[in-house]
């Protein structure tokens, strides 16, 4: 006979599954609602710098004070539209570059002898031990006209004049690819490492060249990793602020930077919040659609 579970044990058992929801509610949903509320407010010279603020006494007045003015402004001003578009473009190109760089790395890691694999994973994560900001600053020293890269290239006689890389979009791509590489490599490695080598042997045996076997077997089977890695890189890259600010030029338009300047330079919290909401919609909607399609595809096979 097992003793009846005590009340406190039962309570604990029912609370444990609630913990993640509690966490998400407290640190994601509530802040989101606050930001959403601010985006519907008007800027004001006050503390906090928007109105209306919530008061129990005047709930009706509070709701009447909310409107979509900020979103109307976002749609009427080309700047936000082109900043969003430019962010998506930069993040998209970066993601493709990350795939091109990350896939061979992940593939080589998955093919390495088992005893070296955990070491290789550790090496991929190693840069995280240094501050992100310092690593990006280091790139300034490398990319600037009299920096390491130009000195090396001139020294080797490859170029006569220093290249202008810093403060261009190219520098932003370099920075994003460098900073986000682990987020691309790790999910790719996880799927490639699980892959059964005999599948490739079977493909070769059936007359497929190694190149074709790569495209018909390896890539489709690595798709979950490709998608996970791409999302992990694309989403934060769209909202990236530090890298374009430090490495990009003044003409590098990104929505994260726009948000920063609305918030800090213009002190327009409501408009900054509206930009944040816009960014969220731009990012979340395609993911939700993708997830939905994917789960239906998986269901038909399971």
């Amino acid at each position, binding site marked *: 006979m097992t003793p009846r579970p005590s009340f406190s044990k039962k309570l604990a058992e029912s609370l444990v599954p609630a913990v993640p929801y509690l966490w998400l509610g407290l640190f994601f949903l509530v802040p989101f609602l606050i930001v959403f509320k601010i985006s519907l407010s008007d800027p004001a010279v006050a503390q906090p710098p928007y109105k209306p603020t919530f008061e129990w006494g005047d709930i009706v007045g509070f709701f009447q004070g909310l409107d979509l003015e900020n979103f109307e402004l976002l749609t009427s001003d080309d700047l936000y539209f082109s900043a969003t578009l430019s962010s998506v473009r930069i993040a998209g190109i970066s993601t493709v570059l990350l795939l091109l760089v990350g896939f061979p790395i992940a593939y080589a890691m998955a093919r390495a002898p088992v005893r070296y694999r955990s070491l290789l994973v550790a090496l991929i994560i190693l840069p995280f031990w240094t501050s992100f900001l310092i690593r990006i600053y280091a790139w300034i020293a490398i990319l600037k006209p009299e920096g390491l890269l130009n000195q090396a290239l001139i020294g080797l006689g490859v170029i006569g004049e220093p290249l202008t890389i810093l403060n261009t979009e190219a520098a932003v791509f370099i920075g994003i690819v460098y900073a986000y590489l682990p987020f691309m490599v790790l999910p790719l490695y996880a799927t490639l490492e699980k892959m059964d080598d005999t599948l490739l042997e079977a493909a070769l045996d*059936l007359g497929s060249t190694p190149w074709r076997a790569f495209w018909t077997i390896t890539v489709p089977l690595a798709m979950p990793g490709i998608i996970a890695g791409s999302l992990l890189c694309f989403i934060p890259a769209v909202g990236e602020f530090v890298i374009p600010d430090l490495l990009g030029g003044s003409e590098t338009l990104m929505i994260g930077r726009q948000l920063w300047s609305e918030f800090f330079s213009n002190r327009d919290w409501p408009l900054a919040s509206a930009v944040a909401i816009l960014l969220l919609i731009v990012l979340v909607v395609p993911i939700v659609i993708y997830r939905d399609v994917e789960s239906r595809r998986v269901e038909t*096979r399971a």
Partner: protein
Amino acid sequence: MPPPRQSASVGAVRRSFAPWSDPEAKPLIRFDNVTKRFGDAVAVDHLSLNIFEGEFFCLLGPSGCGKTTLMRMLAGFEHPSEGRITLADRDLAGVPPYRRPVNMMFQSYALFPHMSVERNIAFGLKQDGLPKAEIAARVDEMLRLVQLERLAKRYPSQLSGGQRQRVALARALAKKPKVLLLDEPLGALDKKLREETQFELMDIQHDLGMTFVVVTHDQEEAMTMADRIAVMDHGRIVQVATPGEIYEQPKTRFIAEFVGDVNILEGNVLGQENGLWRVQTPSAEAPLTIDDPDEVLHSDQAVAIAVRPEKMVIRRDPPGPDAINVLTGEVWDIGYLGDWTVYRVKLASGAILRVTRANRSRYVEHPIDWDEQVYVTFAPDAAVILAE
């Protein structure tokens, strides 16, 4: 369900199929003094072997004997460290797997999980760039052959083990290769299904007239299916022969013990009388008489006598005074298997014999019981002498 064997004459044709005993016949596959090393380990050791067109050939041996390595060299996944492999007189050295007229059915089946049954089977045909209509026709033909027409659109994860095995077979057969390699093809199936599938494989092989090379560690499987069996041990071939020869005339003690059950009686040769060998053993009072004329032995040579359990007769009444090959002992264990009963008989020397008896009738009066004193006899030609 496996289709019935087509006619009695098929069996008759098969019986006369023996290209290996025809000195004129040219082998399809030839291993010529092949050695394969992995670092210091020798997986295949100076091995030579001929396999003929249309043969159902089994490589049999315990795990680690080199049989899988031998097959993988034929498929092109491993390369010989020394020696030569030819297929239809063409040296296979440097020919990549995708250019060999050989297909393989993998032990794990290696079905592509992201492709339906249909697309798995079509995969090899697509690599050849066949026209679409032809691919579809061939896929249909293969699906019919393995009776999976209804499951064409399914994915491997939606199939049972037996169905996956059939898809793997169909995929490997689709290109109609000269040689089909099967790596433990029935290893993952349960016993009933395995037996059915054995006969099915034989039918398919016969109908398509293909050469099959099967790797297995299961001697029963090899015995059932093969035209010839090569028994391997430590990277070498110990004996290549028909299943009957392997079982009835094993060349070494290893083969006698690996293929089927066997009783080994150790002894010393006394001499030859009327063409029969006389061997003294501690297991019997009188010398044993063995009819194995092919052996060349000398007096006092240490030998092992191998007798299969079903070729021994167990009885409780003492045999006549002029009976030969009589061993006495007491029943140690009885195992009733339904079709057979297995008796373990402990001899005075301490050795334990295994004797089987077919249960031909449903009721036996006074069956032989535990601890009973019994006599075990066998005919002179029931035994094989294995020189130590």
